[in-house]
């Protein structure tokens, strides 16, 4: 009788489920089922006595829902794993049904078995949804899909928000996230501010932020000092104004600021340092991201610090833990930046011979270091510094080299095909090395590599391993940084052509910061691990991950 009731009820429900789910993804259907299971769990916990028949009824929909799940699995025959999973899903559903038949007799044991079956079903559903997503293509996945730590498991990554500016939902989520990231004792209106974009953005880049540098950050945003440590505020201002620029400089400044934060930190009562400090750092990182998008090297540094913090054992006292962390940071800076620079210089000097004419672009601290060391080792060479508007960073490199006494020539990037026949080698610095072998560097680097290739001049890229990044990218559009467009305006002979570019609606200015160089333009990458070709970057990353 109970059974017939149940089957009657499940019949139409079954039909509805099937109709709903035909042609839909595996994921949505699984989500519905999971939601229903959660609802039952709650009700099962609250009202055990009365809800017995109703519970058994609600057990049926998961079983019924498990059946239509075999339907979508037959459609994409390529999704073999999902088929396996679906065949596994009816099994726990059957187990649920079996549990349910014994339900009427023992209520507490029934709920335990049910819960177990539900949990198992949910796990299978998770795995199915992950496989399904892999087939459908990665989306902004819900938090449920946690990758199992197996190497071949596909990692579904969330798209970073700084390349989703054109999606209003993402912006709303970010605003909420910044609101939420406060220390508990704060009032609601003290939150990390959201920086607004400036000026007309070229349509190809509407997915990126574009900020203005003219008005200092403190005028644009109200930064609550109780939420953000003053060292971080200062750092953010320095980033946004371009006072601290360059990959290494930014990372070192970040690490020093974090050291200050750690020194001033005290663990609140009933909290553990390893968890609370990481939570404290989150709003700082969001704030710095608002000031200027984080670089790959900064990202790696932050990952390292977070790992070190979470590895601190609970028994450790505050003072000890803090000292340990400060030492870790110092070690990191020393190893990954200072000693790496020395190692790279040692390798690179082998590549510089007497009589060389070396071309460098912009201002890379690493390349400048190499040239100064080579000069000290009495190599005879001269340098051509290529520069580009609007940043004109080459002038800084020129000053440093001339001070050491190196013979230099200076040209703009448009004259590079005039000067290249004289050049014997090109040394370039990098902002990051991507996992598919592309070099991400200051805009204009790919151009120099292109022209050098056309003239058959070897191109050597110098990069420390801590800048290696797991991202992949094939062009300079999907992930980049847009600088202040007003920088392009120039006054020549008293006339400023682009003065009122904002008023002309069809006119846009584009000031890119980075670009990617394909690996076929690069002949050699000099790292602290040695001299490798561009294509060996994922190998280095894998080795590093295994170490860590």
């Amino acid at each position, binding site marked *: 009788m109970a059974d017939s009731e149940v089957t009657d009820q499940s019949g139409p429900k079954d039909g509805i489920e099937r109709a709903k789910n035909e042609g839909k993804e595996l994921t949505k259907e699984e989500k519905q089922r999971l939601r229903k299971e959660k609802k039952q769990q709650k009700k099962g916990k609250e009202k055990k006595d009365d809800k017995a028949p109703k519970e058994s009824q609600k057990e049926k929909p998961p079983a019924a829902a498990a059946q239509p799940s075999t339907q979508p699995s037959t459609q994409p025959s390529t999704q073999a794993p999902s088929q396996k999973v679906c065949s596994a899903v009816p099994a726990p559903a059957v187990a649920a049904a079996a549990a349910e038949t014994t339900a009427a007799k023992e209520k507490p044991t029934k709920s335990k078995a049910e819960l177990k079956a539900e949990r198992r079903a949910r796990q299978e559903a998770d795995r199915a949804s992950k496989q399904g997503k892999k087939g459908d293509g990665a989306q902004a996945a819900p938090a449920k899909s946690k990758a199992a730590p197996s190497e071949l498991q596909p990692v579904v990554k969330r798209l970073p928000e700084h390349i989703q500016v054109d999606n209003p939902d993402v912006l709303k989520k970010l605003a909420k996230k910044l609101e939420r990231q406060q220390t508990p004792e704060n009032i609601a209106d003290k939150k990390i501010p959201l920086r607004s974009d400036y000026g007309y953005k*070229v349509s*190809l880049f509407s997915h990126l932020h574009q900020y203005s540098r003219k008005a200092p950050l403190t005028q644009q945003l109200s930064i609550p000092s109780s939420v953000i440590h003053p060292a971080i505020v200062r750092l953010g201002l320095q980033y946004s104004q371009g006072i601290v620029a360059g990959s290494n400089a930014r990372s070192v400044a970040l690490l020093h600021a974090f050291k200050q934060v750690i020194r001033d930190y005290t663990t609140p009562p009933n909290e553990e340092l390893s968890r609370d400090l990481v939570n404290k750092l989150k709003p700082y990182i969001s704030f710095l991201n608002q000031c200027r998008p984080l670089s790959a090297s900064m990202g790696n540094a932050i990952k390292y610090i977070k790992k070190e913090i979470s590895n601190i054992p609970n028994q450790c006292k505050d003072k000890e833990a803090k000292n340990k962390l400060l030492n870790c940071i110092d070690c990191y800076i020393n190893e990954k930046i200072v000693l790496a620079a020395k190692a790279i210089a040692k390798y690179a000097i082998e590549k510089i011979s007497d009589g060389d004419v070396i071309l460098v672009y912009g201002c890379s601290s690493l390349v400048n270091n190499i040239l100064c060391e080579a000069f000290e080792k009495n190599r005879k060479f001269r340098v051509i510094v290529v520069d*580009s*508007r*609007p940043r004109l960073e080459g*002038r800084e490199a*020129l*000053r440093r080299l*001339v001070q050491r006494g190196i013979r*230099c*020539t*200076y*040209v*703009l*990037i*448009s*004259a*590079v*095909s*005039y*000067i290249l026949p004289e050049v014997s080698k090109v040394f370039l610095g990098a902002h990051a090395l991507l996992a598919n072998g592309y070099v991400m560097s*200051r*805009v*204009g680097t*790919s*151009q120099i590599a*292109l*022209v050098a290739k*056309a003239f058959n001049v070897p191109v050597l890229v110098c990069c420390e391993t801590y800048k290696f990044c797991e991202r992949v990218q094939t*062009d*300079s*559009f999907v992930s980049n940084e847009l600088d202040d467009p007003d920088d*392009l305006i*120039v006054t*020549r*002979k008293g006339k400023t*052509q*682009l003065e009122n*570019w904002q008023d*002309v609606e*069809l*006119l*846009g*200015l*584009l*000031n*890119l910061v980075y*670009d990617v160089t394909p690996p076929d333009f690069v002949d050699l990458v000099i790292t602290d691990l040695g001299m490798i070709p561009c294509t060996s970057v994922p190998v280095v990353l894998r080795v590093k991950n295994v170490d860590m």
Partner: protein
Amino acid sequence: MPGSDKETDLTERIEAFLSELKRGGCGTGPLRGSSETARETTALLRRITAQARWSSAGDLMEIIRKEGRRMTAAQPSETTVGNMVRRVLKIIREEYARSRGSSEEADQQESLHKLLTSGGLSEENFRQHFAPLKANVIEAINELLTELEGTTDNIAMQALEHIHSNEVIMTIGRSRTVEAFLKDAARKRKFHVIVAECAPFCQGHEMATSLSKAGIETTVIADAGIFAVMSRVNKVIIGTQTVLANGGLRAVNGTHTLALAAKHHSTPLIICAPMFKLSPQFPNEEDTFHKFVSPQEVLPFTEGEILSKVNVHCPVFDYVPPELITLFISNIGGHAPSYIYRLMSELYHPEDHEL
């Protein structure tokens, strides 16, 4: 006496023209565009033909050659002057040959057959006097002038054949020909233009403001971003200062990089160049090919402490080899770079290549 008045008047005009040429040689581009220079040169040559004293075609050619050498020496980078002189010389030869009654074609071709059968250099003195020669030459020069006036419009008329809708077109610096070309296409089609600003003179800014005022969606990028944005560009349309005899270009600096980037992405490179820019020079003469301007444009005097210890170069032109070029659009139609030598032989006589 009327004769000497005319002569002094003529020499004054020539001197004025020379000094303008010399002054207009700063890197920001000539004070006038190339088409104006070409027109002024041709008008001046017509005046010389009308007012100078000559009796035979040979004398006239000598006079024009002499003046032409002076004019090209005043501003060697302004090749349109020399081109116009050569065109006029060719006109004189044609008119002379027509007056004599022989066809020009036979005289022109340097075929192997001719070399064997003629047995030595043909004696073409141009010594014969023909009365209507002056009038004929002046008429032909007038025709040349009308042709020059219509070049930009002729090129712009071809715009719709080459630009479709929703395209992204890239250009560099400022070229009046390309500006007219794009504005003509914008009347009927909607497309997007990216202008590389071409440091240090940044003439791209002027081009961008002018295009955006004509209703074309324009974006200005720095020179360093040329390769970065090239993957989204459908066509590259540029102007040039000179078209060389091998089909290569002498164009504003940065053009070679642009051409290489376009080749890498297999984007067609289209040159809008009127016929008067075609010059019988080859790019081999290293010392005369490049022109430099004050390095102050690149490293200003405010960087005083390092200025004395650094070499600074500011070249104005770039050489672009013909392999990187897809199409030339001129006032007489479109041509491949491999066809340029043929056009040259129609415009100039081989003996006039060296003035």
